[in-house]
């Protein structure tokens, strides 16, 4: 093994950069880490460029397209009226589903669901429901008889690392954009959605809610995924970095800097307290950046 190490240091001057990157990926990345930089010229603690577009899906009640670097997530919310459960007669329900279609990555084959999809899906449901971002009582219509069911679907269009971060951002943006449709009780005592054609005419039945309203969101959670490799912390990894240095830690903070989730699912590197403190500091910084981006996107929507 020692001989090959010496020969690679000789070869590296003769080999092309791309070939060296493919053949010795860990060494390629570690050379960059020694200079406190990453192959895409980012400093270690900096996340990629993030952008948000609200209202990307016209037919959905709330939608958003989030991009972090190349990772792209499309979130859409459709609302449906349903009967609430007996144990919670004045609460609505949210169903969260994360899909990774074959378009997102060469590793995902059509027909075989990706390994990461159910895990990210479960993580998202847990985070959104436990963070208390949405008060389920706001989704109630008629206590005990009707309540809203919000179907949140998040599609990964391009998987280039930090999937959970982008998915959570897209979900939070979609809920910020969500407008609950107007409904009224029809003759048979059932709730029907008032469609656009009826808005101009005088309504026979009084609508249950007068106008489209937005959900009041309490503290919105934002996530940052970091890679821990030896003594380095790399914020917002790309898919290439994730596949080489396998220890990931995802920290989710809400707007009052409370810890919603600290997720480290094993991995070769151990997380010491000092490293976790540094990751939390990076997450706080990222929280402020993402809050600014979300507020700007909301203001742009309102201007339109």
């Amino acid at each position, binding site marked *: 093994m020692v001989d090959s190490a010496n020969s690679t240091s000789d070869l590296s001057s003769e080999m092309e950069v791309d070939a060296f990157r493919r053949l010795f990926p860990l060494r390629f990345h570690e050379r960059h880490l020694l200079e406190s930089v990453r192959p895409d010229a980012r400093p270690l603690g900096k996340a990629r460029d993030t952008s948000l577009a609200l209202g990307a899906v016209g037919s959905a009640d709330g939608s958003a397209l989030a991009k972090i670097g190349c990772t792209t997530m499309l979130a859409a919310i459709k609302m449906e009226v349903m009967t609430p459960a007996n144990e919670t007669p004045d609460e609505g329900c949210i169903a969260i589903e994360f899909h990774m279609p074959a378009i997102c990555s060469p590793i995902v084959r059509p027909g075989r669901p990706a390994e990461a999809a159910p895990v990210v899906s479960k993580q998202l449901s847990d985070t959104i429901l436990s963070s208390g971002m949405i008060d389920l009582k706001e989704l109630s219509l008629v206590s005990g008889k009707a309540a809203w069911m919000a179907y949140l679907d998040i599609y990964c269009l391009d998987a280039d690392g930090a999937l959970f971060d982008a998915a959570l951002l897209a979900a939070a943006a979609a809920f910020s954009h969500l407008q609950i449709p107007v409904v009224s009780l029809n003759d048979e005592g059932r709730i029907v959605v008032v469609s656009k054609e009826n808005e101009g005419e005088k309504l026979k039945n009084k609508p249950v809610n007068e106008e489209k309203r937005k959900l009041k969101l309490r503290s919105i959670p934002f996530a940052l995924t970091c890679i821990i490799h030896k003594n380095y912390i790399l914020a917002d990894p790309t898919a290439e970095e994730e596949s080489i240095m396998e220890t990931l830690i995802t920290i989710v903070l809400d707007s009052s800097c409370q810890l919603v989730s*600290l997720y480290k699912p094993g991995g*070769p590197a151990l997380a*010491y307290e000092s490293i976790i403190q540094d990751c939390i500091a990076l997450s706080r910084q990222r929280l402020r950046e993402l809050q600014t981006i979300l507020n700007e996107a909301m203001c742009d929507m309102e201007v339109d």
Partner: protein
Amino acid sequence: MEVDRADGRTANQRRPVVCTRGVLHRAHGSASWAQGETKVIAAVYGPKAGTKKNENPEKACIEVIWKPKTGQSGKQEREYEMVLKKTLQSICLLNVHPNTTTSIVIQVVNDDGGLLPCAINAACSALVDAGIPLKHLAVAICCSVAESGHIVLDPSKLEEQNMKAFIYLVFPNSITSVLPDGSKRPGGEAMEHGIVTSLTHGVMAVDEYFSCVKLGRAAAAELSDFVRNSLKLKAGNDPSKAG
């Protein structure tokens, strides 16, 4: 102010642990781990030849199958499988048997809180029973944070649901080294203070998280002594009990 717990334990007291090796005769290694009412059986088959399609053939591959007590396998089971796989990959010596697959099957017998830590402990004991080469053992415990900020160790299912947050933590086994500073890292922190895996559920303050880690580390050190003693027994079929 002490927190009153339903079964009369103090805040820092774990439930009694029962670990039995060699429960299944056809498996290459097996163990059953019970913490209070939560019970999990783990079986290890392997190493078998060949790796799965997308896995690196230069290393051994670990495959985890999680069987719930009732119902079909859903997203929760997939998540547990992924966390268990990544945790066990970090403790196994993957270069000893390249191009092989070791399968670990987890069967949930009863779930009364702290299911994932119980499963991780059972899986480690089963790996030792099978003789799979490991770097060190992984010791898992669960802590929960009450509304008042009190931290309670090893909650039962009812306590988990009533508390504002709970955390599953996995630490490496404490090291008994011949050298006096054998287990210290260059920064001065002992190796067993590092966290292998951490899963949290519920909102808590950052300080509360670190207090839980401290408490968890102390409990894990105790538990790792128990694991070391119980796995040292030569006659694999003797159950060993500890308080």
